[in-house]
């Protein structure tokens, strides 16, 4: 998977490194700002109220 992405990044080495770093940052941001906030209330470890 990672090798495939690397092969498909255009440009010389320096450009590829920058693009790859950008992809990593994008994936982390997607998880931190979208996926985890959505997932969090579903997970069974942070309910503090009684019914």
């Amino acid at each position, binding site marked *: 998977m*990672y090798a495939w992405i690397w092969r498909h990044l255009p440009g010389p080495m320096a450009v590829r490194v920058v693009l790859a770093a950008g992809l990593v940052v994008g994936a982390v941001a997607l*998880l931190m700002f979208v996926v985890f906030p959505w997932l969090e209330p579903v997970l069974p470890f942070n309910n*503090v109220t009684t019914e």
Partner: protein
Amino acid sequence: MGTVEHLGRGAGRISGDLGDLVPSPHPRSRAPQQPDRVRTIVRGAGEALITLGLVLLLLVIYEVYWTDLVSAGKQEDATSALDTRWHDKAADDPGRQDHFTGLGEGDGFAKMYIPSFGADFQFTIVEGTTEQSLEIGPGHYTKTAYPGQPGNFAVAGHRVGKGAPFNDINLIQSCDAIVVETQYSWYVYRMLPLVEEKQGWAQAKGTDPKCKGVAPLGGPYAELDGQHIVPPTDGGVIAPIPPVGGTPPSEGEMASLMTLTTCHPRFSDKERLIVHAVLTKQWAKDPAKPDERPPELEETI
């Protein structure tokens, strides 16, 4: 001598390896298609598992650190909004009576301090216990009493992440002060005796000067302990008569209590940890001395 021999053998082997790396004019014939596909699948699975591991690690960082940062900002905003409101409203209320009407979900209305957790333990309590409100700070159960009122002033707070206001709430001891500041008053609640301290309270822990006004409550409150663990379905702990639930026959018999709820054990929501405190003192704020603080806030040991 043996060492030299060993080195010699090793060196020989290394040079042999290097020899293998020199591209040969006749490349080794590729293995047939089948093993290559297996390799691709195995490598793909390995990469997926490593990725999953990294994502889970990131989730832990999110839960334990990231939400703390986000909540710290929200708590700060709520505190400054509350300070502004208290400052603005003070002029047009000559009676200096606390009103808790017109509070919206997530609005701050009081501050809480637990001096035994350190002088910096301070949180603005917001109205409501929804997920969004609790991200700001400890949240007041909307149907329960307000600070100083007879009944049960019940507050929920996170124990892990989101600022974790109630992270160490299990360490609070009987008679420890929980000070609640409202616009015009300071209310000093103190944790009630634990079940094992109730027997002979007056001769033992009850002699501590901190414990003035704290004693096992009688009547309908006979079953009430300072701290206990309940299943999440137990709504009775925030009722006017915890933990059994129900309401006393008259206002006069109703004690002024404060209840804190959080998840238990830490990192799990299997149970709830409950702390009950009783109102022991009220200080009216002096408009001439706005910076005056109650002596209970100095009980930092």
